[in-house]
């Protein structure tokens, strides 16, 4: 029974993926992509990867969807400007891509059932850090350097996006201004939902120590709440030259790096935590990252400053 459920889910995902690349309008593609993300979330739950399911729900369909929808809306009237490959070339491409997919499929089918060496290693780290969630043990202790670099990538991407601002708009508020909507369902919703979202983000951060969840997933939800308030026109983003905003963005990576370097002195290796306080230290670092990552993600969706004049 469940096998057929999985097969149906997989076929649904592939059908939506096909629709996302095959339709002409960017809006339709994006809608298909967002629904594809929802189907993938269920697929990750079926695979037993609850942490990944949370992240896929939040980033794969939520934030990426918002980003692409905004871009699709603004490029709606852009002329179709590249040449479509000719029919024979497309057929050739289709055959080549099908070959790639078949090769990868053969690899998947050839995967052996193996002994989980790394799972054992990460699970044994639970005794050292006091966290019971194996994925968070990997992220925060076992491969902490990857996680730091990931925050650096987010930070670098934000610097890249901001650097796309025209000279005249530099230092001003990012993105377009959404005028406050007339009092209606949207404004009510944007006032009622954020407190619930903050609670759920805090919950995810807190349970992340021992159960699926964590700083990143909580941050995504916070970012979505910030964007919702902005879309409803209740608040505008601060100017990118604001010192408080910049401090907020740097706080998380700086805390993580600082604690990692302090590990050299306190525990004998970079990104090692003193065993007695490991859980407390990790929670503090995660809280700092929650705030910074939420701000960074929201600003990445909002885009570079582009208003030459101060908002009317």
């Amino acid at each position, binding site marked *: 029974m469940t096998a057929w459920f999985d097969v149906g889910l997989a076929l649904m995902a592939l059908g939506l993926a096909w629709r996302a690349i095959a339709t002409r309008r960017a809006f339709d593609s994006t809608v298909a992509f967002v629904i594809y993300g929802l189907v993938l979330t269920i697929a990750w739950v079926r695979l037993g990867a609850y942490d990944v399911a*949370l992240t896929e729900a939040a980033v794969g369909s939520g934030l990426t969807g918002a980003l692409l929808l905004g871009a699709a*809306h603004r490029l709606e009237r852009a002329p179709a400007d590249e040449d479509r490959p000719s029919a024979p070339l497309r057929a050739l491409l289709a055959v080549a891509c099908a070959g790639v997919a078949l090769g990868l499929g053969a690899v998947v089918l050839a995967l052996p059932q193996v002994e989980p060496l790394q799972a054992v290693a990460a699970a044994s780290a639970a005794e050292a850090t006091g966290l019971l969630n194996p994925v968070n043990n990997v992220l925060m202790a076992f491969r902490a350097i990857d996680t730091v670099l990931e925050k650096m990538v987010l930070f670098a991407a934000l610097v890249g996006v901001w650097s796309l601002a025209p000279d005249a708009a530099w230092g001003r508020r990012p993105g377009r201004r959404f005028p406050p909507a007339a009092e209606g369902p949207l404004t009510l*919703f944007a006032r009622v939902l954020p407190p619930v979202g903050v609670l759920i983000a805090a919950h995810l951060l807190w349970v992340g120590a021992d159960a699926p*969840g964590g700083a990143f997933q909580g941050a995504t939800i916070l970012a979505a709440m910030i964007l919702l308030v902005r879309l409803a026109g209740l608040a505008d983003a601060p100017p990118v030259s604001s010192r408080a905003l910049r401090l907020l963005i740097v706080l998380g990576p700086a805390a993580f790096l600082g604690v990692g370097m302090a590990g050299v002195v306190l525990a004998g290796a970079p990104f090692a935590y003193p065993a007695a306080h490991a859980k407390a230290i990790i929670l503090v670092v995660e809280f700092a990252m929650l705030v910074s990552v939420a701000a960074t993600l929201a600003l990445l969706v909002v885009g570079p400053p582009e208003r030459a004049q101060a908002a009317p």
Partner: protein
Amino acid sequence: MAALMIWAAVAIAAIVAVGLVRVLCGPTRADSMMAAQLIGTGGIAVLLLIGVAAGAPAVVDVALALALLSAFAGVGFVLGGARR
């Protein structure tokens, strides 16, 4: 009881998939948004059912996140479609 929940999840997934095909072929933008709304609620129901059936309380958290973000995505759709 778990078997019944899995059956219910499969039934809802099938029902939603049928509705989805219809709506994705629909002509207007509102139809596309309805598709997203439909699979949002259906997907959350499926998640709750398989989560409780598998005894994994974490899946309820996934459903919570999805419920929050599906609302966000819906608002995004509308602002892409309606407010110029």
